[in-house]
């Protein structure tokens, strides 16, 4: 990604930012909230859009609980200053380290899951105590009665089935189909890199996991017909100041994101906070699934060393094949 020139541009920008920040009372603080973003103006592409191009990672948000954990009940995100976060980070890193040997196994007990150095979550420097920022209690709102009925029906349809009677019993992710929106931005073990490319009228985000190149038109065109539903949905974007807002609908019925239907609407906001940091938020709305909308948030950190490599997931999906083979061998053993 244009590394040498970009570094030079970024050094210039960094120097300018340093001068601006030195003039402020809180010179020591990194901009970390969207309100601070007002202090930062992103560079522009030749056609005038804010230029967010580059490689970003959120591998540092591994190990962060999705919702507020029970032991932190009563707390709010604002209660966690630098000292409190440092303690949480230490605790989580130690927990991840304790599990390390159970991932790749040892020389005489290979778990088949690869060596520990494949994994990116051991030294994660979490920015937040949990991911859900709306509602304030950090919990995903309760499912509606309709959503509970759907979940029960799915459960009933699966009753009597084993975990791998067929490939359809495995997750969409196990099957190398997709992780969908917004889950494809949730870091897991490795591959938590995102590469943003822009062209006039478009932003494209590439995700390493499974391999996705998500093309987001910015030209105000109409959404796809509801007849066309896609695993990554159908995204339309626009700029609000320097913030890229992306609305995704037309989600595939098989996606079933936390019980949501194809009526799910995800609104993401990519707000540049400085040359090396984007504040990413995703707000989920599906009135037939949740009693009210809710949102998550994570920082994306610029890191050109985290280039995306080809993930030929399905081509090398021995995992799925072996799970099915093992299940049939188990059936044969029982009979």
């Amino acid at each position, binding site marked *: *990604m*244009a*590394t*040498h*020139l*970009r570094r030079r541009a970024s050094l210039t920008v960094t120097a300018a930012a340093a001068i601006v920040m030195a003039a402020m009372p809180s010179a020591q603080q990194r901009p970390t909230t969207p309100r601070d973003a007002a202090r930062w103006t992103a560079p522009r*592409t*030749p*056609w005038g859009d804010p230029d967010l*191009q580059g490689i970003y990672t959120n591998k540092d948000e591994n190990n962060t609980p999705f919702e507020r954990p029970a032991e932190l009940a009563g707390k709010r995100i604002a209660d966690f200053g630098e000292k409190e976060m440092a303690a949480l980070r230490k605790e989580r890193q130690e927990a991840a380290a304790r599990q390390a040997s159970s991932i790749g196994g040892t020389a005489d007990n290979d778990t088949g899951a690869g060596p520990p150095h494949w994994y990116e979550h051991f030294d994660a420097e979490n920015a937040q105590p949990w991911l859900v920022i709306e509602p304030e209690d950090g919990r995903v709102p309760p499912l509606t009665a309709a959503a509970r009925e759907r979940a029960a029906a799915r459960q009933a349809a699966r009753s009597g089935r*084993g975990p791998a*009677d*067929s*490939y359809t019993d495995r997750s969409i992710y196990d*099957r*190398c*189909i*997709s992780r969908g929106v917004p889950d494809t931005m949730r870091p897991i073990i490795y591959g938590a890199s995102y*590469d943003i*490319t*822009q*062209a*006039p*009228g*478009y932003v*494209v985000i*590439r995700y390493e996991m*499974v*391999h*996705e*190149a998500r*093309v987001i*038109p910015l030209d105000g*065109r*109409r959404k*796809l017909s509801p007849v*066309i539903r*896609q*695993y*990554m949905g159908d995204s339309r974007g626009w700029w609000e100041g320097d913030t890229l807002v992306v609305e995704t609908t037309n989600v595939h019925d*098989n996606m079933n994101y936390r019980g949501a239907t194809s009526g799910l609407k995800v609104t993401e906001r990519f707000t540049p906070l400085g040359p090396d940091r984007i504040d990413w938020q995703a707000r989920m709305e599906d009135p037939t699934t949740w009693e009210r909308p809710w949102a998550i948030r994570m920082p994306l950190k610029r890191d050109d060393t985290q280039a*995306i*490599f*080809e993930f*030929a997931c*399905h*081509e090398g999906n021995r995992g*799925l*094949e072996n799970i*099915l*083979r093992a*299940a*049939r061998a188990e*059936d044969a053993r029982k009979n």
Partner: protein
Amino acid sequence: MVRPMSQWLKGLLAGAVVATLVTLVATGTWLGSSRAAALPIARMADGRPNLNGIWAASNTANWDIQTHQARQGPVIALGAAFSVPAGMGVVEGNEIPYKPGATAQRDANGRTWMTNDPEVKCYLPGVPRATYMPYPFQIVQSTEPNDILISYEFASASRVIHMSTSQESPTDTWMGWSNGRWEGDALVVDVKNFVDQTWFDRAGNYHSDALHVVERYTPLTTDVIQYEATIEDPNVFTRPWKMSMPLYRRAERNAQLLEYKCVEFAEELMYGHLSKKP
């Protein structure tokens, strides 16, 4: 009545031809360097040709990159709906210079196409096949020094064309490792580090992991790109050879790459035999 009209038309046509020749000579295009220089093409702010857009080939090369006659398709039940249309071929000179003995593998691939073609399994199609499969692709071009991205509808494949620095691939890949440069108005892409598991077509034309492809994307007009791919693979071919074809812009106002996540369409074929029998 017929004769005078015919003569009048002839005169008109001759006049038009002369006028066109005069215009072409006067503007230097007739004797000039190339047709590409004669027609307006879109350009980016940095002066490079603007290749942004959704493109597709319109040929039968995915069936067979060489000249082929129409024939019965492999699924009798699908009759005329899935039989093979004839094609002029896209290989210059129509000859693929296989090494002695290497055609046997091609013939075997062709015979076992339905079970062995990576396309059937929804595997990443490789380069140049991704270009002429019957699915559109989108070129995403920023200005220098940014890289160029190509996103393909088939199997959500994509590839980055490294533009600013020539980079080495850390490993072999299905879509290859691409380093690009501009030669005049042509985008020239050097692609290597392939696995040996992709094919060129359903006829079974194949390569090894020594495959080296040099692509040239030359804009002819705002809506047509002349595409060339020079193929080199000393394990399989005696000399480099070349494919060429035009690529056409998808001109629908609402043109958009749609998802073709074909994994789920190949699963029963690949894993059905491993499902629990009722």
